[in-house]
């Protein structure tokens, strides 16, 4: 027996090592998808062993690149600067046009009470490596849980979607690209509004699945995210239809050319925070406040005693709540900025008894109280949490205070729970 063991020792050890690995593989496959959690420790060791080199090389590469481009290679910068300025001018004109369109779309969404997902926070990250295998489309980025990244966060570039965060380590994360065979993204065709699922293939191609073969899908049509996967917000560019052919069963084979260049990624953005809110809320609220601010009768300006004090703790002036509450008088603009946002939800409920503080606030720059209205910024639009938003604010003294037509009646004053007391 001993002689047999000795003679076939190498072969027995080989079989033992292979058996252990096959067993491990079988366990991982059986748990179906959650294997990355079970093998996390080995993966952490491997990633920690390799990524410091990658970080170092990227750091040196970036440093040398920056040094060269920012200090030495400045040929043609003046001409480029001129061109960019011209582009900015053109884009400003374009922006005016687009903001009109956006406002119109906003109004329509308001009517339909749409819910939208907004990208409220992103983290920029640098690609430092990959899986090294053409069968596993994975990249590594230099941000991890220390930067607030979590599993299943969307990763995008300015051109289009890239993938999702698969595994998170303290300073590094693993990102599964959309052209990996295990990836799946809910998408929609821009014009025909057909929905499908974007999947990768072993050869690294992105394919649109689940589109019936009797549908017409033109080559070149833009593909956007549908938001159905709960990872990517709706409407992000995915790519364009590159080739359409009849597939097996009842579905089309649609090859998609990704909008982002997935083979040469350098910097990406990780969507760390999405916000879902009803478009209608803020728009209606702000407009109602503005309407009230313009139409309600006012009381004469009366400088309050504490308004004279710098940083005085006057109540209510800046917050939109002022008309509906038992507010004594105007406040300084500084106070307006400090007021808690959570109280800013009741402008519609204001009774027509007190002039809105936006107009009555004394100027902060030391001018006379009578000149105050022209200098005041007015209330900022607030989101559902009461935070100031980036939507354009309608100033009380602006030439177009509201988009609602003049013949439209103002909202009925003070009928809700914050009414006059």
């Amino acid at each position, binding site marked *: 027996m001993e002689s047999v063991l000795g003679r076939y020792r190498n072969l027995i050890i080989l079989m033992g090592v292979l058996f252990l690995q096959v067993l491990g*593989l079988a366990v991982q496959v059986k748990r179906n998808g959650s294997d990355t959690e079970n093998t996390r420790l080995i993966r952490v060791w491997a990633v920690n062993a390799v990524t410091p080199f990658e970080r170092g090389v990227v750091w040196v590469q970036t440093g040398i690149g920056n040094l060269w481009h920012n200090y030495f290679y400045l040929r043609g910068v003046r001409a480029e600067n001129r061109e960019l300025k011209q582009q900015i001018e053109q884009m400003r004109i374009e922006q005016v046009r687009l903001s009109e369109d956006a406002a119109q779309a906003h109004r329509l969404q308001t009517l339909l009470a749409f819910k939208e997902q907004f990208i409220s926070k992103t983290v920029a990250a640098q690609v430092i490596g990959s899986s090294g295998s053409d069968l596993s489309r994975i990249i590594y980025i230099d941000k991890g849980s220390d930067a607030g990244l979590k599993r299943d966060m969307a990763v995008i570039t300015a051109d289009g979607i890239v993938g999702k965060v698969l595994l998170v380590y303290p300073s590094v994360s693993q990102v599964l690209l959309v052209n990996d065979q295990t990836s799946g993204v809910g998408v929609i065709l821009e014009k025909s509004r057909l929905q499908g699922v974007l999947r990768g293939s072993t050869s690294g191609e992105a394919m649109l699945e689940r589109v019936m073969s009797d549908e017409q899908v033109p080559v070149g049509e833009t593909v956007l995210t549908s938001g159905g996967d709960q990872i990517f917000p709706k409407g992000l560019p995915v790519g364009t239809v590159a080739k359409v052919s009849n597939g097996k069963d009842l579905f089309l084979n649609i090859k998609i050319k990704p909008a982002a260049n997935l083979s040469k990624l350098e910097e990406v953005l990780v969507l760390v925070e999405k916000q879902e809110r009803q478009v209608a809320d803020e728009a209606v609220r702000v407009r109602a406040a503005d309407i009230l601010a313009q139409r309600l009768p006012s009381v004469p300006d009366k400088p309050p005693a504490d308004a004279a004090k710098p940083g005085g703790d006057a109540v209510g002036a800046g917050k939109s709540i002022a008309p509906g509450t038992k507010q004594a008088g105007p406040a300084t603009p500084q106070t307006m900025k400090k007021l808690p946002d959570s109280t800013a939800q009741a402008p519609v409920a204001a009774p027509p008894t007190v002039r809105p503080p936006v107009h009555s606030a004394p100027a902060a720059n030391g001018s006379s109280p009578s000149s105050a209205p022209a200098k005041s910024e007015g209330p900022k639009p607030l989101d559902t949490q009461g935070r100031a938003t980036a939507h354009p604010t309608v100033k009380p003294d602006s030439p177009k205070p509201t988009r609602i037509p003049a013949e439209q009646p103002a909202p009925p004053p003070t009928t809700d729970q914050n009414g006059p007391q």
Partner: protein
Amino acid sequence: MQITYTSGEQVEVYRFGIPATVGIPLIALFLQAFVPRRFPAFSYLDLPLLVTIFFAMARRNPISGLLTGAVIGLVQDSLGGLPLGLYGIAKTVVGYGASSLGVKLDVENAGARLLVTLGFYLVHAAVYFTVARGLVSLTLNWSWSRGILAGLANAFLGVLLFFFLDKFKQRT
């Protein structure tokens, strides 16, 4: 091209210092993970496989060869998103085979190294393909043209790499 049969007493067995034993596979894994992002064609090459073959053939010890292959393969698996063991199993087989072959053949000359590397690349691809399809149910399609081309590319790189890595050999 010269492939000579040698007896067990004739072949030289080498060993490597700890820095080379740890550093060379790590650098190979790092390059394999880093370079394809800049040069996608580099993903056709498999540096960890070449390092496995080199160590196995130089040490000429099947157990050492299969363990080297298993460790390098498992680390390579860890960097990817697929289950651990695909590269591990394939490189274990290659490590065992290369070290067993190293005992029988003189694999010090360029021609032998070219053929051996090409052969083991195909063995590695075949084992990987079989395990990936049979155990993990990945939908892989075998392509002979791609396999041969990638094998040749790896074989030529292997010849150059092995001459460089010979500098780290230490006689036992």
